[in-house]
C-alpha cells in the first residue's frame, strides 16, 4: 500500500487528516503534519486552537474522530497510551505524590520489567543528567517547582521513548527561570537525541526552542516552517499578526513584474522587490515588520523615491534595548517602528510630537492573500 518512498516522505511522526470532535465542537479540524526524526517541533497557538487536543491524541489519551497517526511507519492510532513508545511531560508535572523522586523516575522502567541492576543504573544516570542525584529520596512535595519539572523530564526520558511530548514546558516558571530552563531543556533533549513535539502559546518559547514551528488556529495548521521562515515569510495575515509585531495594510495590486510589484494601499503605494502571483486589481495584504523600517527626524532625513512616509510620533514605548515608535501618518493611519537604542546618551533622538520620516527597503514588505 504505502511504498518506501511515501513512508520516508511521511516523516518519522506523521498525522494524516486527523480530526477530533467533541459533540458539536470540532477541536482539531483536519491536521496533517510530518515531523522529522530528531527535531524539536512546536505547536504554537492561543488557547482553544486545538494544540493540546492534538498532543493528547499523539499521547493516546484521546482517539481521533477521523484520520490516522503513524510513528516510524506504524499506524498507532488505535494504540492505548501504555503501549505507545511515546512519553509525555505534563504541564503540571503530575509526579506521583506517594513515591520518592527515584521511584517516580523508575516507575516507567518497572512497567517494562527491566532487570534490577540495569534499572538502577539507568535511573541514576538520568537523575545525574538533570542534576537531581542528591534528591533521589525526596518526595515531590519536598521539591521546588523547577526541581519537580526536572523530575518530570527525567521520568519521561528514562524510557528512551521514540517521541517526547512536552505540554507547555515553561508555563509554570517565572521569567528568569524560564530563560535558563529553555536552554537546559534543549540541551538535554539534544543530548539524548529524542524527537520532541512541544505545545505552547508562548511565541518566544516556540521560536527559541523549536527547530520547526506549526502555527495553529481553530483546529487547523496555518503554517509550518523554521522559526526564521515563519517570522520573515508569514503565509497569512493571522500568522503575521500572531508572531511578533507587524504593520498590516490591505492593498490593490497595480503593477506586477517578475522582479518587483507595486500595491496601492491606504498609506500610499508600496514597492515590493519581487513579483507576486495574482491578477492585477486583486486585493492582497502587505506586512512590514517594525524593525525593518527606519525612522529619522524629518529635518534630518533625505527624501526617498518610494516606500517612505511622513508622520508625527504619537507614542513611544521604551524597552531599554530598543524603542517602539507609534507614528500617525497624514490621514490618520498608524505605523509601528522599532529601533534599537544603539547609542548610549542621555537625550532622545526622537521624541513625542516630532515630525519624522520613515522608510524601508523594497525587500522588507511581505505580500500575502487578503484573508
Amino acid at each position, binding site marked *: 500500500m504505502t511504498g518506501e518512498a511515501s513512508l520516508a516522505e511521511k516523516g518519522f511522526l506523521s498525522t494524516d487528516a486527523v480530526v477530533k470532535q467533541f459533540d458539536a465542537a470540532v477541536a482539531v479540524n483536519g491536521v496533517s503534519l510530518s515531523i522529522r526524526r530528531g527535531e524539536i517541533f512546536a505547536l504554537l497557538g492561543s488557547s482553544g486552537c486545538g494544540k493540546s487536543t492534538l498532543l493528547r491524541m499523539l*499521547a*493516546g*489519551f484521546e482517539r481521533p474522530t477521523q484520520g490516522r497517526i503513524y510513528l516510524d511507519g506504524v499506524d498507532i492510532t488505535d494504540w*492505548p*497510551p*501504555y*503501549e505507545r513508545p*511515546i*512519553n*509525555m511531560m*505534563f504541564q*503540571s508535572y*503530575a*509526579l*506521583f*505524590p*506517594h513515591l520518592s523522586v527515584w521511584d517516580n523516575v523508575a*516507575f*516507567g522502567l518497572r*512497567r*517494562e520489567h527491566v532487570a534490577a541492576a540495569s534499572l538502577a543504573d539507568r535511573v541514576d544516570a538520568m537523575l545525574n543528567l538533570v542534576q537531581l542525584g542528591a534528591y533521589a529520596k525526596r*518526595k515531590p*512535595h*519536598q*521539591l*521546588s517547582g523547577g*526541581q519537580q519539572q526536572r523530575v518530570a523530564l527525567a*521520568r*519521561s526520558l528514562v*524510557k528512551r521513548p521514540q517521541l517526547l511530548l512536552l505540554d507547555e514546558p515553561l508555563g509554570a516558571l517565572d521569567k528568569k527561570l524560564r530563560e535558563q530552563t529553555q536552554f537546559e531543556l534543549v540541551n538535554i533533549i539534544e543530548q539524548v537525541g529524542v524527537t520532541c513535539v512541544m505545545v505552547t502559546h508562548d511565541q518566544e518559547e516556540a521560536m527559541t526552542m523549536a527547530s520547526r514551528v506549526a502555527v495553529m488556529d481553530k483546529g487547523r495548521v496555518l503554517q509550518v516552517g523554521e522559526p526564521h521562515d515563519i517570522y520573515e515569510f508569514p503565509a497569512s495575515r493571522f500568522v503575521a499578526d500572531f508572531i511578533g509585531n507587524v504593520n498590516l495594510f490591505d492593498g490593490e495590486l497595480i503593477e506586477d513584474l517578475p522582479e518587483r510589484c507595486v500595491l496601492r494601499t491606504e498609506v500610499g503605494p508600496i514597492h515590493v522587490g519581487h513579483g507576486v502571483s495574482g491578477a492585477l486589481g486583486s486585493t492582497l495584504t502587505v506586512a512590514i515588520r517594525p524593525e525593518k523600517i527606519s525612522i529619522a527626524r524629518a529635518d534630518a532625513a533625505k527624501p526617498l523615491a518610494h516606500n517612505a512616509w511622513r508622520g508625527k510620533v504619537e507614542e513611544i514605548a521604551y524597552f531599554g534595548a530598543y524603542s517602539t515608535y507609534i507614528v500617525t501618518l497624514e490621514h490618520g493611519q498608524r505605523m509601528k517602528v522599532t529601533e534599537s537604542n544603539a547609542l548610549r546618551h542621555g537625550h532622545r533622538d526622537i521624541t513625542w510630537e516630532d515630525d519624522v520620516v520613515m522608510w524601508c527597503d523594497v525587500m522588507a514588505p511581505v505580500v500575502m492573500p487578503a484573508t
Partner: protein
Amino acid sequence: MAKGLWAGRAWLALVYAFLYAPLLYMVVFSFNSTRQDARYTGFSWRWYEALLNDTKLVDGFWLSVQVATLTGLLSVVVGTFAAYVLVRYRRFGGRSLFAGMAHAPLVMPEVVVGLSLLLLMVGIQTLLGWPERGVLTIVIGHTLLGSAYAMVVIQARLSEMDRRIEEAAMDLGARPYQVFMLVTLPNMTQALVAAFLLAFTLSFDDVVIAEFLSGPGVNTLPQVVFGYARRGINPTVFAAATLLMLAVTTAAVAYSVWVLRRSRQRAGEAKRALAS
C-alpha cells in the same frame, strides 16, 4: 459581642455536658458496689469481674469483632468498586439505577433492609439448603449498609484526586489495572482507612439487622445488650460500656494524631522546599 461569645461558650459547655452525661453516668456506676442504678453506694470492681465471667457478653464481643472486621473489609472493597464506577464512568447503561441502588441503603430504615434480606436468605436457603443464618448472613447485611457509607467517603476522595497522575502512569506504560493498584489506591489510603472504620463501627453497633439475620445461638454484642436492656438495668453492661469507650477513645485519639502529624509534616516539607 462579648456577651454573645460567653453565651456561645456556655451553650457549648451545656450541650457537651448533655452529650457526655450518659457516658459519665455509665463509667461512674460501673464501679458501684451495689446493683443500684441511681444511688452510688461505694467503689467496687465487682461488675468488671462479672463481665469477665459473663460468657454471653464476652462471646458476643468476640463475635462482634469478627463480624465487624469482615464487614469493614468487604465494605471497603465493594464501596471502592461502587465509588470508582460512579466517579470515573460518567455514562453507561443503567447508571441512574445504579446510583439509586448504591445510595438507597443510606436512607432505608434498617428494619426494612433487615426484613428484605431475611426474606432473601430464607428464599436461598429453601432453594439451595444453604446458608444457615449466622455470621455470613449478618456480614452480608452489615456490608450492604457499610458499603454505602464507605462509598460516600471514597467517592469524596476520588472525585477530588488529580486525574493527571493516572494519565502519567498510563503514559509510562501502566495498564488500567496497574494504574489503579499502583497510583490510585496508594493516594487514597486515608479515605480507605476512614471508610473501614466507619463500616466497622456501624457493624459493631448494629442490633436491628443482626436480629433479623442471625441464627439460634449466634448473638452479637449489641444483641446481648439489647436482650439485657429489655429486662432492666445491669451494671455489668456499664462495665462493658466503659471498656468500650476506653477502646474507642484511644483509637480515635490515635487516628487523629496520625492524621494531624501527616498534614503537619507535609506542610513543613512544602515550606522548606519553597524556601530552597
